[in-house]
């Protein structure tokens, strides 16, 4: 069952780690250009849901449909290719490659997709400008602040023109002011590029940047606005 017009939809996902159920019948959907916050207490299963949706882990049962394709029917290689071409990721700690400069980090997804270096870095710089970090392009991640690093991570997530960005506690390591700015820039850039965002957070002020929120409790996702 896929909600009409949704880009990514999951139905009745179940996932168990050992004897511990992480997801126990979770359903979810996001439309193109929509920002959906996934909220819930620690250990509720929200990160597991995000990892399943992104094809990083495979659920024990249930279906995930992306753009009309069933994720579980795809080979590992196809899922990896899909992640590179259509998905972008932002994690709590930027997870930038420390040996590369910031602009090289942002250009990395494009390089992996076969874009020539010069073109990739030109696109990367344009996104860095959008995220207000163009002046640190030549620095390495270890030489920039947490807030700047996270903006570089957002620019990297957007650089390869993904259709969905998965953001797992993207402001968790930032102070309020930097966190707010990152959320503002991320959601503005995503909405204007019609990119869907799946935003995992336990902070209500971060979730308030979304269009809609889904609560995960005990492995079950509850969408209050779309509940039947």
């Amino acid at each position: 069952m896929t909600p009409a017009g949704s880009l990514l939809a999951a139905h009745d996902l179940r996932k168990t780690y050992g004897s511990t159920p992480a997801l126990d019948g979770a359903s979810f959907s996001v439309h193109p250009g929509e920002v959906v916050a996934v909220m819930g207490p620690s250990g509720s299963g929200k990160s597991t849901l995000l990892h399943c949706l992104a094809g990083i882990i495979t659920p024990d049962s249930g279906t995930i449909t992306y753009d009309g394709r069933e994720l579980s029917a795809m080979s590992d290689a196809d899922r990896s290719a899909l992640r590179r071409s259509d998905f972008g990721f932002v994690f709590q700690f930027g997870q930038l490659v420390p040996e590369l400069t910031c602009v090289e980090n942002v250009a990395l997804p494009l390089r992996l997709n076969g874009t020539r270096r010069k073109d990739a870095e030109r696109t990367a710089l344009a996104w860095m400008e959008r995220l207000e970090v163009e002046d640190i392009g030549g620095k390495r991640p270890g030489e920039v602040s947490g807030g700047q690093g996270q903006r570089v991570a957002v620019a990297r997530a957007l650089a390869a023109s993904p259709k969905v960005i998965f953001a797992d506690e993207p402001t968790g390591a930032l102070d309020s002011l930097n966190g707010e700015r990152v959320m503002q820039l991320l959601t503005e850039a995503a909405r204007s590029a019609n990119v869907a965002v799946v935003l995992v957070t336990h902070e209500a002020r971060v979730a308030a940047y979304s269009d809609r929120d889904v609560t995960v409790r005990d492995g079950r996702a509850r969408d209050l606005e779309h509940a039947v």
Partner: protein
Amino acid sequence: MSIGHTLLGLLESGPRHGYDLKRAFDEKFGHDRPLHYGQVYSTMSRLLKNGLVEVDGVESGGGPERKRYAITDAGITDVATWLAQPEKPEPYLQSTLYTKVVLAMLTGRNAGDVLDAQRSEHLRLMRILTDRKRHGDLADQLICDHALFHLEADLRWLELTAARLGQLQKVVTA
């Protein structure tokens, strides 16, 4: 908010007409609730009577007379005292929500639904305020942040209570 003290404070930078005071108040603090002219003039009459302002001049044109007000030394002291006095923190001990949760349990209804509905309503308002912040100036951002932090505190309480519903159920129905 004390309108009297706010108008007095605005007068400290120099004398103004009632209309100018209203405009300055609305610009800086009015946002969703602009002052009525009646409020301005009744407040100024009270401040005048208490010796906190004085009439600095009267202009008579085609319309009604326009008084220009100036703050007095007593008025300046009054503003200083008000600013130095901390506002009493809200104790938040009378919670309608808590009452609703307990009543839901006592009447066999789902208390989790009460919390979820409230959570959804809080987030809805937080989205509106976040959007206003995004398009507003610094004053808008600060005012909205004040509200957002309070709403966030409520939401934390909602989460905590949701996690303790089982415990509460035992106590309530014991």
